[in-house]
């Protein structure tokens, strides 16, 4: 018997507001009508998928990062810790060692190099993971605490948890943060295929190019979905054609979609062309998955 490995799909975009959440939630809900599906909201700074996914919260778990805590009694003020820390998160101020937890990257250097063991690592809450189920759909939301600045540790932890607990779900969708820097890399790194959602405007194209470069740097195969097709111009399509990037679907611009979205409603069962687009996308993903296995 061969071991079944889940097919992990990242849904990302350079530019925000192009329809990443719309696509993630509708694709997940549509897929879950016929097969068991996992949706993970990794847009931890502004998670929105929960608005569209029904089902009650079954469990919530606090997520932590590890930060050093100063034990004054053990400390000899040798200065190694503040010297070691590249992030200025551990600073010696006179006879006091200050720890700036939001600057700490949890590298453990100060803690493990302290000769007196005066900086033991302690848990610090950075966010919450919650789980909901709705029929064949399992939904995990990862949410960063307000005031926390680092999304990356929480994204890593969410991936680890999914790997550990949800390997039995063969189809997994990850709604990624926008942009092209560390959070989206952390989110897309552990996936098999990346869908970039864009819109046919100059902003959309500019950010799509950056996102494509980022995903290529990660060495992942990718496809593009053009949302709000019909507005703007044809430059996104020309770019994709020229660079041989597959366009999985074009979702027409439609005010009804925006209105449903504003009310927190799914659209695939209300707008026929959305369902058609989803079918095209799934067909493409299934073929990719077969080749991938």
């Amino acid at each position, binding site marked *: 018997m061969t071991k079944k490995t889940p097919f992990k799909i990242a849904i990302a975009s*350079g*530019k*925000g*507001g*192009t329809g990443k*959440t719309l696509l993630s939630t509708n694709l997940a809900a549509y897929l879950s009508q016929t097969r068991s599906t996992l949706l993970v909201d990794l847009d931890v*700074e*502004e998670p*929105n998928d929960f*608005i569209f996914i029904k089902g009650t919260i079954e469990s919530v778990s606090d997520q932590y990062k590890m930060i050093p805590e100063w034990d004054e009694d053990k400390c000899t003020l040798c200065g190694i810790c503040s010297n*070691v820390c*590249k*992030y200025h998160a551990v600073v010696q101020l006179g006879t006091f060692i200050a720890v700036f937890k939001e600057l700490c*990257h*949890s*590298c*453990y*250097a100060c803690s*493990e*190099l302290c000769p007196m063991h005066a900086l033991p690592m302690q848990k610090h809450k950075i966010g919450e993971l919650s789980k909901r189920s709705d029929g064949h759909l399992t939904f995990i939301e990862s949410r*960063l605490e*307000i*005031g*926390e*600045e*680092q*999304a990356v540790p929480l994204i890593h932890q969410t991936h680890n948890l999914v790997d550990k607990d949800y390997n039995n779900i063969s189809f997994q969708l990850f709604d990624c*943060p*926008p*942009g*092209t*820097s*560390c*959070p989206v*890399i952390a989110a897309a*790194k552990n996936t098999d295929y990346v869908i970039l959602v864009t819109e046919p*405007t*100059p*902003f959309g194209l*500019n*950010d799509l190019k*950056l996102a494509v*470069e*980022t995903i290529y*740097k*990660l060495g992942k195969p990718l496809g593009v979905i053009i949302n709000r097709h019909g*507005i*703007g*111009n044809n430059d996104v399509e020309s770019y994709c054609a020229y660079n041989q990037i597959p366009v999985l679907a074009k979702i027409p611009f439609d*005010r009804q979609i*925006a*209105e449903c*979205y*504003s*009310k*927190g409603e799914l659209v695939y069962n209300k707008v026929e062309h959305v369902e058609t687009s989803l079918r095209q996308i799934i067909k493409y993903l299934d073929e990719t998955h077969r080749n991938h296995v």
Partner: protein
Amino acid sequence: MYEIVVLSGKGGTGKTSIAASLAVLAGNSAVIADCDVDAANMHLLLKPDFGKTFEFYSGELASIDQELCTVCGICAEVCRFKAIPFKEDQYLISELDCEGCGYCERVCPTHAITMHERKSGHVYISKTKVGSTMVHARLDIGAENSGKLVAAVKNEAKSTAMKEDKQFIIVDGSPGIGCPVVSSLSGANYVILVTEPTLSGLHDLKRVHAVISRFRIESGCIINKFDLNLEKTVEIKRFLLESQIHHLADISYDIAFTQAMTEGKTIVETSSPLKQLIEEVWQNVKEQIIKKK
């Protein structure tokens, strides 16, 4: 000198289009800073000349001298970022994963590891099409520290504004609530929030406002696409009232923004009736900040 930051929480609400419009209205009385360095788009509307370019260095990156390395593996053991994989009988640094903590350099018994400054992007100082100075940046693909690049852009904008004795700095911030947003808020006098009447728009507005409140910065809000969902618009206005956020304007759902963008223009450079509305917002914001001082 007054610093105005435009933020949105959620992406795609029209933040950049509005910030660029204000930049055109402010003309040469303002210095412009594009702090959405992950997915910078303001240049598409303001046509800066990329006059001066600086390389931006931030953080460090480890490198291993394979001649000195005895393949003991201590570095990989202490690295919390899984950034030192063992491949083909060698330990190698994965640039995308290395967070520059320097722990490996400290513990390497043969001093085979050294830390280097890491180039992570470019900063540009330009003249825009309206003659104002604009500071903008591009983060290298996959680079970290976009918060630090935001700080570099802002500092450059500030010193230019001082030197040229400008009255305003207009900052286009990034989506989300994480480190780039926090970094763009330092020193701000006023925040313009751009939202849309969707459940996600309101949810994200509340989260970003919670961050702003911690810094005690006064804010005003523009509801873009207000007629998409009138009930939500009412709900947003209630939130603005409760939270003491000035309600600046309601902008209707109008394809004119996209049309202007496709032509590389801001809405205030077209004959759209929205022009007057944005002009009123700019007057209103100016009065509020100046009155306060």
